[in-house]
């Protein structure tokens, strides 16, 4: 089991060049006693933070711990209520990103800020344009940017537009932009959350190269423990707006870090109990479908989920999982095959009808499909039941008008779910978009679970969440399984799949290549199968 193993720096596949532990290293940045409060929340409660020249310093914390707020203060996007910032020992005042950039501070946000329609080269030089007379000097710019590209392995086509680039390439453009701005301190907000595994490796190499010369220091915001350990020299842990500790990355393991970050022991592996299996709650037979571009991505999938069982679908994204979920939920037409919910044919029925039969859904696209981000937390919690009593009065919808709706019922409902699911929100009236990722997922879970489903489609329910929220959501799923619910779990995380599932179906290129009971396989074997390298024939596939 993972937590009993000695900690390894496994994430990047290699140990970092060396941990900086000399105290003689000058602090190029010091943030002292930083405090910032938003209405209802203290985001930063007198935090101290320092950064040495040439180091990579992780800021580790759960969603909503105040990591991004602290960095937005440094970057001039927020004004601090109290505290001071020193650069090279001199006190500075940073009131806008412009001030930050001129002090050598650049920040790469979680969601990239490239200008669509402008070629890469113009995006890189934006704000720092070299000119010849009144005109842009694109020749000079190109020469300078190409030199940076070569030095740090950041090759990107300079004439391409952002919309033609992959996520990894866009990130390279953001890094180039920061370097071109002459950054001495580079803040990266959750830089790996959007990357593919091989892109993460590449990013790590680049970061090491950039700091090796000592001219650049990096602040790395993350909630992922292995990343923090593998990527950084030191780690500062924040919890609920407070600084917990600063530690040398080489001297800690995941378990102690997790305890500092969450404030309690975290179980990476939750034990699951035996359950009584019932009949087939959900079954699909020979299901085929096409994706948005018209390509056939689902090429005949057959599987079933029993009551009291979790069927895990393992596979790399883009092998037909998305289309499978869409078809089951009635969001995409099946071109062949059938879907049976408790024995009833629901192929190509409407989502409303399918949900009416007791199928719950935790979508991968939380913001797009999971919630209505401009509506309140309370209203989001009754979505789907909003037309029914006690939330609606007769035939009128509840949201329009206080006179005809049961706002009180909606509030009470929300209040009880907020407590039960540990949603961190000041009131049910809070807009859903203002919640953190972990809390949005808890909201969706609370809503689906409160609607009394028998079957749940959970599409990557824990991706992108911090370990505390992950554990919480996994526990809830296992609880529902024990109550005899049938759960279809789609995940790319092999640890999660092997921990949660009773049986594992491996999906590759639109087909199920194998379905095996979890006791008869290993993580390594599944890992090989999802790449199409091996297949294990099993009677269940027939």
């Amino acid at each position, binding site marked *: 089991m993972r937590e009993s193993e000695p900690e390894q720096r496994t994430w990047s596949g290699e140990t970092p060049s060396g941990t900086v532990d000399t105290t003689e290293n000058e602090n190029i940045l010091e943030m002292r006693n930083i405090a910032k409060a938003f209405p209802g929340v203290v985001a930063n409660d007198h935090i101290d933070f320092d950064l040495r020249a040439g180091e990579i310093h992780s800021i580790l914390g759960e969603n909503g711990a105040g990591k991004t707020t602290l960095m937005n203060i440094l970057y001039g996007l927020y004004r601090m209520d109290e505290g001071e910032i020193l650069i090279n020992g001199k006190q500075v005042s940073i009131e806008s*990103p412009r001030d930050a*950039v001129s002090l050598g501070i650049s920040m790469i946000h979680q969601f990239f800020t490239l200008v*669509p329609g402008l070629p890469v080269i113009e995006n890189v030089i934006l704000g720092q*344009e070299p*000119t010849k007379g009144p005109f842009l000097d694109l020749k000079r710019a190109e020469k300078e940017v190409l030199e940076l590209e070569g030095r740090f392995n950041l090759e990107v086509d300079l004439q391409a537009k952002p919309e033609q680039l992959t996520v990894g390439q866009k990130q390279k453009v953001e890094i180039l932009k920061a370097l071109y*701005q002459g950054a001495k301190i580079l803040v990266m907000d959750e830089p790996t959350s959007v990357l593919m595994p091989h892109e993460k490796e590449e990013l790590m190499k680049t970061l090491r190269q950039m700091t090796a010369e000592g001219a650049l220091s990096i602040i790395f915001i993350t909630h992922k423990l292995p990343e923090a350990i593998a990527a950084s020299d030191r780690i500062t842990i924040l919890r609920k707006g407070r600084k917990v500790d600063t530690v040398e990355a080489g001297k800690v393991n995941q378990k102690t870090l997790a305890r500092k970050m969450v404030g309690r022991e975290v179980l990476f592996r939750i034990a699951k109990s035996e359950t009584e299996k019932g009949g087939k709650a959900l079954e699909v037979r020979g299901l085929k479908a096409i994706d948005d571009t018209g390509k056939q991505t689902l090429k005949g999938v057959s599987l079933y989920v029993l009551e009291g069982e979790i069927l895990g679908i393992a596979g790399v994204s883009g092998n037909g999982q998305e289309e499978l979920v869409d078809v089951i939920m009635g969001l995409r037409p099946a071109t062949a095959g059938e879907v049976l919910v408790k024995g009833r044919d629901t192929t190509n029925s409407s989502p409303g009808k399918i949900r009416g039969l007791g199928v719950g859904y935790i979508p991968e696209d939380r913001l797009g499909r999971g919630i209505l981000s401009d509506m309140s937390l309370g209203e989001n919690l009754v979505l789907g039941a909003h037309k029914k009593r006690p939330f609606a009065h007769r035939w009128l919808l509840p949201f329009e008008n206080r006179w005809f709706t049961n706002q009180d019922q909606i509030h009470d409902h929300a209040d009880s779910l907020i407590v039960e699911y540990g949603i961190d929100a000041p009131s049910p009236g809070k807009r859903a978009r203002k919640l953190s990722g972990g809390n949005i997922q808890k909201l969706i879970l609370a809503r689906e679970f409160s609607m009394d489903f028998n079957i749940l489609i959970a599409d990557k329910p824990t991706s992108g969440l911090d370990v505390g929220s992950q554990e919480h959501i996994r526990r809830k799923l296992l609880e529902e399984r024990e109550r005899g619910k049938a759960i279809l779990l789609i995940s790319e995380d092999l640890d999660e799949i092997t921990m949660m599932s009773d049986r594992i179906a491996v999906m590759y290129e639109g087909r199920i290549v194998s379905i095996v009971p979890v006791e008869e396989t290993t993580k390594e074997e599944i890992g090989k199968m999802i790449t199409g390298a091996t297949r294990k024939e099993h009677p269940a596939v027939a």
Partner: protein
Amino acid sequence: MIPEAIISILSFFPVIGLAALGGFLSQKSGVWNLALEGMMAFGTFSGVFAYHYLGQSIWISLLFGFCTGFLWGILLSVLCVRFSLDQIVVGFGLWFITEGMAGYLYYTVLPSVRITKTMGPRILSLDPIFYLTLLSFALLYVVMRYTKQGLAVVATGENPKAADAAGINVHRVRFVCTALGSAFVGLAGSYLSLVILQGFTYKMVAGYGWTAFALILFGRWTTPGILFGSLFFTFLVGIQTRMQVAGIQFIPPEFVVVLPHIGVILALSLAGAVGKKAGMPATLGVHYERE
């Protein structure tokens, strides 16, 4: 020599071209100017006003129209960029105010004014404003593409967050683009009353402001596209005028008057069918504020 018919058609071009150019500039930076029609109407009045009171010079009157457009543009930017009011509500409000004020002021403060002077010098029988309009299109094209100021405008309209992070003052860019754009719209109105129709009548703008607005969509927010659209519409107006002058009997005159507008609707539908909103600045109409 260019035939006289073509010249009389082309002489209308500055009215539509300048208005479209002005609207384009503010839209490119991310601000809807929905008061094009009204700002033009006020331009028609202020041109005639300046002609009467400031020494009967066409040049000074046009400059005056340009300046009043600039002032209305400042009001629009203060309300929408500085105070983040809804651009659609403010735009419509300004349309009604400016159009109404133009008519009211003309009939209260001015006697009936006839413009007797014409503009010179002429090249190929076309006045300097025609060439200035063409030059403005060329200049705007170069600025948008090859200067850091143009880059700042595009970035502000497409992704103000990125612009802000790169040290560009988003509000200032939008302020300048909206005010300057409105000045061009005012100039277009003054040109209409001073040079084309040589006098003022209430509602003389007759939908040209909205046509200019439509042409920005038609031109997909590109300078060459809008230039082409403006010339196309100018041509339609010219044909309509010639049909009226020729006194064609078998088509009702009311129908002839709306012909250019039908042409624009057809062209817009065609453009829409091909590429929908392609080219539209991504944050057009969305107020930007740091969190």
